[in-house]
């Protein structure tokens, strides 16, 4: 309708001239900029460290080989570190996830792997509470507040001041008046998020590709979820202060309490003493062997590597072959608890995915981290690849060790190079579906409540 054009433009003008809009928009921009700066900073520092690794590795091996001249490979192989890296995806700057908690590079020796894998912190592998003020923090935690600020008094303020009476009498389509006011707010919220998101794309130089689009889709669903939640609270037809209080309480619950409780439940339900246990078992498995007959240790080793049975291992004195076989046996003895640990870390991830079905805040955060490859799953994948790399390193050096080759006769630079695991494309379906289902359910509840509380005659005095 032509008349409606005027109503639309005046409604937009009326909303934009309110003092919360500019204030909210500007502060979100500023927080957004800081988030990009912070994310960029953290990941750039990691990239700088990772960039130094190849030259450090080469120099390190060179030094070790220099010192080892004249000695056997078995003696020299004890010393060098071999570096592995978990380079960040381009989207890690957007959502740092657990990259600041979990190690992004690990150096491993030829010794037992288990103790080395968990040399780093593993006390709280699933930090559902976000600790970094990165771009994902701005979207997950601050955008809901913007939505609350834009919507909580949409209708209640007009009821409180008395304009609403004139509005109700002027239009016979009260529901469309309400819809118009809310659509304008939704449009401003979406526009703000689009601007902040595009700013992020440019600032963080995110590629225009599927993962970037996935980030956008998750954020869109998340913003819509919070908007419908605000709709539902408004639809109760209560006062502005009631709406603001309830919405802020919901924000605290969904963003802070729920993830905190979920974290405690996960910690209690799936405890991971295995990291410590594995390290202890591996160390015990290894240390005890010094005082034990060499034969059983060697049998453990031969079970996997029968080709070395032909090399003699003296029972009464030290030999390199026995030493590395002993390291390996330690790993074998702790392998059960190691597998258990990986299984439990995966269980934790699954349980937190389940929690995400009930709380879009968790779902959105998880999906951003999934897309950015900065979640626990990515870390597990990294640890597994380090184990694989360690295996190929051992296997590269075993011949030299058992044949008692001299250090200078082995090509140390030809050792297997670590290949980072690479980007894993995230599947968003479950998270998106759950967020949308919540939004749709809440939206329909709200429309019923709007009709009941705003369209039908209300018996409130001074309605």
């Amino acid at each position, binding site marked *: 309708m032509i*008349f409606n054009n*005027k109503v639309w433009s005046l409604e937009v003008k*009326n909303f934009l001239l309110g003092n919360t809009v500019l204030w909210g928009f500007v502060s979100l921009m500023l927080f957004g900029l800081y988030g990009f700066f912070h994310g960029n900073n953290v990941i750039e520092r990691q990239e700088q460290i990772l960039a130094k690794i190849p030259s450090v590795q080469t120099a390190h091996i060179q030094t070790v080989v220099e010192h080892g001249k004249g000695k056997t490979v078995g003696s020299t192989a004890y010393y060098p570190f071999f570096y592995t890296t978990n380079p960040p995806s381009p989207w890690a700057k957007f959502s740092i996830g657990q990259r600041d908690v979990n190690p992004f590079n690990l150096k491993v020796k030829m010794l037992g792997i288990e103790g080395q894998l968990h040399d780093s912190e593993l006390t709280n592998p699933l930090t559902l509470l976000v600790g970094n003020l990165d771009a994902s923090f701005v979207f997950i935690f601050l955008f809901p507040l913007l939505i609350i600020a834009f919507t909580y008094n949409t209708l209640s303020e007009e009821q409180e001041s*008395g304009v609403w*009476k004139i509005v109700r*009498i*002027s239009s016979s*389509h009260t529901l469309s008046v309400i819809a118009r006011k809310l659509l304008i707010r939704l449009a401003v919220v979406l526009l703000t998020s689009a601007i902040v998101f595009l700013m992020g794309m440019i600032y963080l130089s995110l590629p225009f590709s599927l993962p970037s689009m996935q980030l956008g889709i998750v954020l869109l669903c998340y913003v819509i979820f919070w908007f419908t939640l605000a709709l539902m609270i408004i639809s109760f037809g209560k006062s502005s202060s009631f709406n603001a209080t309830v919405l802020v309480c919901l924000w605290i619950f969904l963003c802070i309490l729920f993830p905190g409780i979920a974290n405690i439940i996960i910690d209690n339900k799936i405890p991971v003493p295995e990291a410590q246990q594995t390290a202890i078992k591996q160390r015990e498995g290894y240390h005890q062997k010094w005082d034990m007959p060499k034969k059983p240790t060697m049998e453990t080793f031969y079970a996997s590597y029968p080709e070395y049975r032909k090399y003699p291992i003296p029972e009464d004195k030290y030999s390199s072959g026995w030493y590395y076989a002993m390291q390996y046996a330690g790993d074998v003895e702790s392998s059960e608890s190691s597998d258990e640990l990986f299984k439990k870390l995966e269980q934790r991830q699954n349980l937190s995915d389940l929690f995400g079905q009930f709380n879009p805040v968790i779902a959105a955060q998880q999906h951003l981290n999934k897309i950015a490859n900065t979640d626990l799953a990515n870390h597990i994948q990294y640890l597994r690849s380090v184990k694989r790399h360690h295996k190929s390193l051992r296997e590269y050096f075993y011949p030299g060790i058992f044949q008692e080759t001299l250090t200078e006769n082995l090509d140390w630079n030809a050792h297997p190079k670590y290949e980072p695991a690479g980007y894993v494309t995230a599947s968003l379906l479950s998270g998106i579906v759950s967020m949308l289902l919540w939004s749709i359910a809440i939206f329909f509840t709200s429309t019923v409540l709007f009709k009941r509380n705003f369209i039908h*005659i209300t018996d409130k005095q001074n309605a």
Partner: protein
Amino acid sequence: MLEAKNLSKSYGSHKALNNLNLTIGPGEIFALLGQNGAGKTTTINLFLGFIEPTSGIALINGISVAENPQETKKHLAYIPETVMLYPNLTGLENLEYFSSLAGFDYSKQDLSELLATAGLQNQAFKQRLGGYSKGMRQKVGIAIAVAKKAKVLLLDEPTSGLDPKASNEFSEILKNLTLHGTAILMATHDIFRAREVASRIGIMNQGHLQSVLDAGSISANELEDLYLKTV
């Protein structure tokens, strides 16, 4: 045009309006006098459809307000005691917004004329309403009501906040509207103006319509005496 049949409204045991029977025809102005709490505003809110009657029926153009509030609203215009509008918009924009909501498409010229007729000074048209005095807002409210060209006008102490000159102009606007067949129900404390502008005057006390008088047959002093005796 406007009819109440045994219309009652109770809040718990308190009877805000008791068995009101009233008919206001086209071109008629009915003034309701009474103390605060006599039931004047309750009567108006029942016709507006803001509240539901406990018993009885309020009709506008023969349509029940309680059963079909969306329909009866189309025939209604309303000026409350304190007109509150959008403070971020100008007077002109407020008028444009509300008249467009009601489905009218006035030109800027028409809108300015409506505001001028309502007595708002020219220079205020394009100022933000937030800076208006109560009287100025009241005038915009009058313009909004007139712009709706409604068959029924409900006024709840519309002249409160208006200076005598503006009140006088408002009376003229009302008389002019009656010439076009508008039925007007006006709650007021202004005995003098009620006698001057209304065709009939009702005096209410504790939810009862105590007496109805023909405005032409009574002087202001007589009306005041009667009012004081009734309440």
